[in-house]
C-alpha cells in the first residue's frame, strides 16, 4: 500500500442520490476497496451498493444492556442480602420483584449509552479534522450534494486513470483532495 505524497484521493460530485448509489456499485465492481461516499442524509441502498452488511452497534448495545441489567440486579442483591441485610418481620432479603424497576432502568440506561458511545467510537468521532474537509465544494455534502471519494491508498488508484473513471460515472467537479 504505497502512499502518494499529500494526495488523499479524488472526489466526484452527484446531484441525485440514485446516481451516487449507481456509481458506488460501479466503483465496487471495478475493484476499488478504499473509497467513501458522503451524503447529506442516509441514502437508501447505498450501504448495500458499497458492500456494507452489518455493523457492531447492535452487538455493543446488547452487551451494554446485559451488563446494565445484570449488574444492576446483582448490585441490589448485594446491598440487600450481603452488605446490609435487614430482617424486617422475617420477609425475604432477596425481594426480587421490588428490584425490577431499578434493574429495568439501568438496562435501558447502559444500553443507550453503549449504543451512542459505541456508534461514536466505531465512527472515530470526535475527530476534529479530516482531509476530506479540504475538498472543493465539500460543504455541499451537508446540504444538497452527494460525493464519492476514491482514496489514494487504494492499490488501483492512478491519478489520471481514476479521474477518467470517475468522469465516466458522470461525476461532476472531479478534483484532487490533499492531505494538508
Amino acid at each position, binding site marked *: 500500500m504505497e502512499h502518494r505524497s499529500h494526495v488523499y484521493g479524488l472526489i466526484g460530485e452527484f446531484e441525485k442520490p440514485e446516481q451516487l448509489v449507481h456509481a458506488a456499485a460501479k466503483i465496487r465492481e471495478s475493484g476499488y476497496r478504499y473509497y467513501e461516499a458522503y451524503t447529506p442524509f*442516509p441514502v437508501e441502498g447505498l450501504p448495500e451498493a458499497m458492500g456494507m452488511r452489518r455493523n457492531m452497534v447492535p452487538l455493543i448495545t446488547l452487551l451494554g444492556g446485559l451488563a446494565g441489567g445484570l449488574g444492576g440486579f446483582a*448490585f441490589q442483591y448485594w446491598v440487600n442480602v450481603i452488605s446490609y441485610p435487614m430482617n424486617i418481620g422475617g420477609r425475604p432479603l432477596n425481594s426480587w420483584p421490588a428490584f425490577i424497576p431499578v434493574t*429495568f432502568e439501568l438496562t*435501558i440506561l447502559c444500553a443507550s449509552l453503549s449504543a451512542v458511545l459505541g456508534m461514536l467510537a466505531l465512527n472515530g468521532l470526535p475527530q476534529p479534522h479530516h482531509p476530506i474537509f479540504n475538498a472543493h465544494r465539500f460543504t455541499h455534502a451537508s446540504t444538497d450534494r452527494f460525493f464519492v471519494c476514491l482514496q489514494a491508498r487504494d492499490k488501483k488508484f492512478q491519478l489520471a486513470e481514476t479521474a477518467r473513471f470517475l468522469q465516466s460515472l458522470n461525476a461532476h467537479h472531479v478534483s484532487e483532495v490533499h492531505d494538508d
Partner: protein
Amino acid sequence: MSAGQPPIDSPEITRLTPVLGPGHTYASVTDKISAIVLTRPTSLGWYIGFLIAFSVFGVLNIAIGWLIIKGVGIWGINIPIGWGFAIVNFVWWIGIGHAGTLISAILFLLNQKWRTSINRFAEAMTLFAVACAGIFPLIHTGRPWYAFWMFPYPSVMGIWPQFRSPLIWDVFAVSTYGTVSLLFWFVGLIPDLATLRDRSTSKTKQIIYGMLAMGWRGSARHWHRYQSAYLLLAGLATPLVLSVHTVVSFDFAVAIVPGWHTTIFPPYFVAGAIYSGFAMVLSIAIPLRKAYGLEDFITMRHLDNMAKVMLATGLIVAYGYFFEFFMSLYSGNKFDVFLVQQRLHGPYSHFYFALILCNILLPQLLWFQNMRTNVTVLFIMSIVVNVGMWLERFVIVVISLTRDFVPSAWGRYSPTVWDWATFIGTLGMFVMLIFLFVRVLPAISIAEMRELVSETSEERK
C-alpha cells in the same frame, strides 16, 4: 409560502394535505431551517418574549433561594398534606415530557413520516420539561444539598438507598429518562450541527457548531452505524417512556392511601402523560410555525394528527376516570367510597368538576373536522388540556391526603405565594429554554427533512 396549501375544509383534501409543502428541494429545506439560526436577524418579538420568560425564571430563582434559606415551611404544605404543589408540578412536568419521546421514538418505529418536522422541538420540550420536573422533588426534600444520598455510593455511613422504595425507583427512572432523552436529542442533532458548521459565515459559530458536530462528515459508513444507533435508541426509549410514568404512578399506587392504591394508575398515568404532552407540543408548535413562517413544514396535517392523538389519549384518560370511580364504588371499601363522595361534594369538588370539564367534556369538540383544522381552537384546546391535566394531579394529590382514614387526620391545603412563584417560575424557565433553543439550534431536523424531500419526490415519479 402557505399560498400553495389547499383549502382545508373538506376531509378528502385534509387527508391529502402533505406532510411537506410542495416544491421543496434539499437546498430549500436546508436554507429555510438553518436561516432561522444563522442569518435571520433576531426579531424584537424574540427579545421581548425572552426577556419576559427570563424575568419569570428570575422569580423561580428567588423562590428557590428563599426556600433554601427558610425551608419548606414557606410552602402551604402541612401534616397531613406533605406533598402539595411540589409533587403536583413534578408529575405534571414529567408527563408533558412524554409526548416528545412518543413522537421521536414510537412514531419513528411506526414509520410515521409526519413526525419528521415536529420531533426535534418535541424532544427539546421533553428535555426542558424533565429539567423543570427534576427541580421539584429535589427542593421538596427540604435539604436539597443532601440529595446525593439518594444515589448508591459507598459512603462512610455504610448504608445504601432503599431499593424497595418507589421514591428510589423514581430517582432511577427520571435520571435515566433525562439521560436517554438527551442522548436521543443530541444524536439527532449531530448531522444538523454539521450543516450549521458548514453554512455559518462567522468564525465563532463555525468553531462552536464544529465542536458540537464532532467532525461529522456524512460518510456513508458513519450513516450506516448512525442509523443502527438511532433505531436502537428509539427501540430503547419506547419501553422507557412507558416505564417512567408507570414508576411515577407507583409513588401513589404502592401507598395505601384511598384514591391512590389502585392498579389502574400505571396505564392511566401514561395515557394522561401523553395527553398533556401532545397538548404542550401543540401549544409550542402553533406559535412557532406562525412566528417563523414554517407552515410548509408543520402543516395542517400535523396539527390535525396531533389533535387526533390528543382526542384518543383523552378518551383513555376518561376511561381511567370512569373506572377509578366505578372500582371505588364496586369495591365497597368505605374509605374508597368516601373518597369518591369527597371528590364530588368535598371542599375541593370545584377542582374535580373543572378537571372533568377540561379533560373530558371540552376536548370532545376535537371530534369535529373543522375544530381540528382551526388553529385558534386547537391552541385554546391545548391550553385547556394542560390546565386540566394539572388539575388532575392536584385532585389526586390533595383530595386523598386531606381525607384519609380517620377524621382526626383530615386537613386542608392551600398553596402560598411561594408555591405559585415556584410553579410559575418553572413555566418561565421552560419558555426561556424554548426561546433559546429555537434561536441557537435548528428547531426542525434538517437531515430528516432532506430525507423526506427525497422520499416524497420519489412518490411523485
